[in-house]
């Protein structure tokens, strides 16, 4: 085979599966279709580019929604004349102060910190790319560092699970108290929806392309 004698960097139409190391030839895909490995079904690649303006718009919207969803209470209960409400952060701190800091930390990471880091990271990547900073060494190294942790942070962010969890909590508590949703609930749900679209629009492979582009 000729392949082994040439530099692999030049094989733009070859791809190696992350899950099983199978060599597959890359070909054009119809839009909205994701290529999976024929052997182990790990996703290989999808559309070769992402709409930068779309990602930027969705990212700014998410950041704007993030602020009220953290400031306003997500749930409120009325019980025998007394009213209790809780924001996401207060929920995490409530278990932390009971001595269950592992649980509190988990809630804090999944619902507060990871989404913030994710949005901040995407925003920073967009700024580096749009302004052309990725051509400088500093910009390239920063972009490299951000992309390296992207999948990990993306997995840590658990907005969708939190949305289901306040629905479950509201049903559970409706047994003994009246449960009300507030402005925070609405903002948090919207944050989840917009972030979901952002994650679908964002393409990690495309972003890595900017790191190698500045290499030449």
């Amino acid at each position, binding site marked *: 085979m000729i392949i*082994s004698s040439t530099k*692999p960097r030049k094989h733009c139409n070859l791809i190696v599966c992350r899950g099983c190391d199978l060599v597959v030839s890359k070909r054009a895909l119809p839009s909205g279709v994701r290529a999976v490995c024929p052997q182990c079904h790990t996703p290989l690649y999808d559309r070769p580019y992402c709409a930068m303006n779309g990602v930027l718009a969705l990212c700014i919207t998410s950041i704007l929604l993030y602020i009220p969803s953290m400031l306003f209470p997500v749930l409120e209960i009325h019980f025998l004349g007394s009213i209790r*409400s809780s924001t996401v952060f207060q929920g995490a701190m*409530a*278990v932390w102060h009971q001595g269950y800091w592992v649980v509190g930390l*988990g809630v804090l990471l999944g619902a507060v910190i990871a989404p913030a880091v994710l949005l901040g990271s995407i925003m920073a990547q967009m700024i580096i790319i749009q302004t052309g900073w990725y051509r400088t060494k500093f910009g390239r190294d920063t972009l490299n560092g951000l992309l390296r942790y992207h999948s990990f942070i993306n997995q840590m962010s658990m907005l969708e699970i939190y949305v289901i969890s306040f629905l479950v909590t509201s049903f*559970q508590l409706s047994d003994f108290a009246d449960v009300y949703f507030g402005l925070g609930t609405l903002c948090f749900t919207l944050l989840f929806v917009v972030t979901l679209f952002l994650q679908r629009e964002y393409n990690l492979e495309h972003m890595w392309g900017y790191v190698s582009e500045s290499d030449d």
Partner: protein
Amino acid sequence: MSVNQTTKARGVDIGVFRCQVCGQLNDQHDEYCVRCSSAISPRNYRSLQNSWALLITAAILLVPANIYPITTLTKSGIVTHETIFSGILRLVHADLVPIAIIVFTASILVPWLKVLGLAFYLSAISFNIPISRQKLMAGFHIIEWIGRWSMLDLFVISLSVALVSMGQLLDAQPAPAATAFALVIFFTQLAAKTLDTRLLWDQLDKNDDTP
């Protein structure tokens, strides 16, 4: 959509190493990735051992997570300790069956499936058990995808504890199993993330579905 494969060749066979960080294809003589400068290794053999260690830790923690109470509920001065399972039973008795199913899936089904599934998967690599690699990998993808959903119960507990705090009248507090449960999620996710799945496919020749 499945892409047509040209050969049965692996990256190692043709001297191309895929960077596990950024996906760049590198020459076998390269020590560091040309794109992201991370170290290149053909296989991470140590990941199997690490994954086993993390999984065993998670399996041990699964016991206290299930037998100890996960919340303490005070209602009109009466204190009840609730385990994961008794909490689900209470939901069933309160005619909240759909919610009970969601909690059951997130708190019992997913963690157990994750631990047993990963144990099976790791054994298949370690002891070269002849079972379909395709089915194993499909199971692994499912485990990776649903694993995070166990966090649901902890989110519910944190909200309940923050909201229900009216002293002797009505009060909810977390109990020891909550920490054990959080650690189970942490260790199983880490065990799945650490593993280099390519190790499974290196034993491909013997146990393959497709001719």
